[in-house]
């Protein structure tokens, strides 16, 4: 399995996401309303040695992808780690119409998304609805489209989807997702989860390997189900040739001091860390603190 970047620059700070403070989230959201300010922070990250970016397929990501594609000379060396889908887009559509009408809208109402001819040939929603796998592949295509032409290393499925599906205990969906990402996008399949030990055990049971698993990992056990000890055991026993583990929420939304947080992270058998920051001071400090074991 191709090795992933040890440090990946995340995007929550740009899009008003802060799990601890709504107020902080609002402030950042204002600051990054102007996309130019986002590019400035990216440059700070790149100037400090970061070469990998995780970016959720939200409604502003397309513009960001366009920018980096257009400036390939300067940014062509970067690796991209898309995370799909943007859950809130679907949440509101599903609220309004129900799940299948919402999917129908995403796939068919927006002709430009995939090209209407392909859809008609495949028989439209009526046929698709009997085949969740085919539907999943088409939804993946809609979401991944905006990253085309960028050097995509891992395509992550968001935790809300991964953990929802995990509860259903259906091997096929995970197997097909991972296979599809490898074949169609020549990238590593990634799964984001808040139940890492359970997901990893399931993947092992199902014989699905060479997957990147991204999960919250921090010394206070925040967003780590079922508990921190089960995480530590799973991490220690992990074979990185089978599953590369990426840590997110390492500061637990700011509850842990950076030095403490990364002392803990550095002591574990982890392959990568994704973090977000918006000031040069924090970016510099974090990059200098992350010293993964291998």
């Amino acid at each position, binding site marked *: 399995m191709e090795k992933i970047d040890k440090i990946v620059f995340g995007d929550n700070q740009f899009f008003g996401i802060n799990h*601890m403070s709504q107020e902080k989230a609002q402030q950042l959201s204002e600051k990054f309303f102007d996309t130019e300010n986002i590019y400035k922070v990216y440059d700070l990250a790149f100037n400090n040695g970061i070469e990998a970016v995780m970016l959720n397929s939200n409604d502003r990501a397309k513009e960001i992808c366009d920018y980096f594609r257009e400036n390939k000379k300067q940014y062509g060396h970067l690796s991209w780690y898309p995370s799909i889908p943007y859950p809130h887009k679907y949440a509101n559509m599903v609220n309004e119409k129900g799940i299948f009408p919402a999917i129908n809208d995403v796939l068919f109402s927006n002709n430009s998304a995939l090209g209407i001819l392909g859809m008609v040939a495949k028989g439209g929603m009526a046929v698709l609805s009997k085949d*969740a796998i085919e539907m999943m592949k088409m939804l993946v295509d809609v979401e991944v489209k905006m990253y085309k032409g960028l050097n995509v290393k891992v395509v992550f499925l968001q935790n809300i989807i991964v953990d929802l599906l995990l509860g259903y205990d259906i091997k096929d969906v995970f197997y097909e997702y991972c296979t599809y990402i490898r074949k169609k996008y020549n990238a590593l399949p990634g799964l984001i989860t808040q139940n890492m030990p359970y997901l990893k055990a399931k993947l092992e049971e199902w014989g699905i390997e060479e997957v990147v698993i991204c999960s919250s990992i921090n010394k206070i056990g*925040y967003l780590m189900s079922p508990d921190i000890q089960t995480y530590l055991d799973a991490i220690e026993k992990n074979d990185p040739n089978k599953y590369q583990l990426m840590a997110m929420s390492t500061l637990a939304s700011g509850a842990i001091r950076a030095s403490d947080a990364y002392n803990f992270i550095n002591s574990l058998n982890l392959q990568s860390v994704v973090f977000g920051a918006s000031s040069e001071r924090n970016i510099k400090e974090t990059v200098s603190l992350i010293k993964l074991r291998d």
Partner: protein
Amino acid sequence: MIRLGIIGMGRMGITHYSIINSHPEVEIIAVADTSKITLDLLKKYVPNLQVFKDYKELIDTAKPDALIVCTPPNLHFEVCIYAFQNNIHVFVEKPFTSNVKHAEELKQKFESKGLVNQVGYVNRFNDVFMTVKKYVESGLIGEIIRFKSEMFSCTVSKKEESESWRSFRENGGGAVYEIAAHAIDLVDYIIGPPDQIVGTSMNQIFSKHVEDIVSSTFLYKNGCSGTLYVNWCDTSYRKPSNKLELFGSKGKILADQHGLKVFLNADDVVTGYKKGWNTVYITDIFTPVKFYVRGNEFTRQLYHFADTILGQEKGDICTFTDGYNAQNIMHQLFEDAKINSLKA
């Protein structure tokens, strides 16, 4: 082992399935839904699951011990009654019903038989609001004099294109039933049901038949009073957020799903909080759950239901009585709003 059925596989049914399927003592044996697509898919990918188009058929054929009911709210009553007749424990989504008389009847019936009964007011299982409840009951901020319960979401952000059950109040649609219900339940949970409701007003922005905004004033015989303000067209909010402000004789509390701030007029020995502001983050007070899908509170509420059936929990959090209380308050809001319209 609890043999469980789920009636209604919309957004909440789908989520609840995933969560409760992780409980070691629960086996999901059957689901019912009117959508053939949903049933076909489940049948295809979950081999031993029985699927039904009709909830009665599910109850008659699969004979579950317990049900999770996530149909449109106007159907909750008949499904619950049929479950009651068949001695089945029930978890039902909020709002409990779309009619206060139905809520009262269900409450009495389920209590009379000792069947486990729970309504999906999920904030009662949120780490922050559980902590606020504990603090208020311990008298940390003294007697509550005034409160504010607010909720904001961007659930409806444009004119309705098509109509569904959500478009009509009779079916359980509208900002009061769908969103304000949570803000109202928080008041009932932490302060208790009001003795009188006055000054209710509602606005429409995008919805054709139901309200998008509601505000009201709650009065209590002990002199406490509070305001409710809920808006489900507020696009400045990325996800639904509850905000609660409690002003008491010894201090005040500000809380949302992610944290709380306590202001005290004097040091408190028990909590260790100092005079002045004290900030408590979710990271200070969370307790992890065994399986996470949509937030700890969603797992905790369903495990509470299952564990109550198993005799491991008391089952006193968010019962049908609590569901009735919220329903009764919502009924009063609608009645009060009618008499508060602008005089021509």
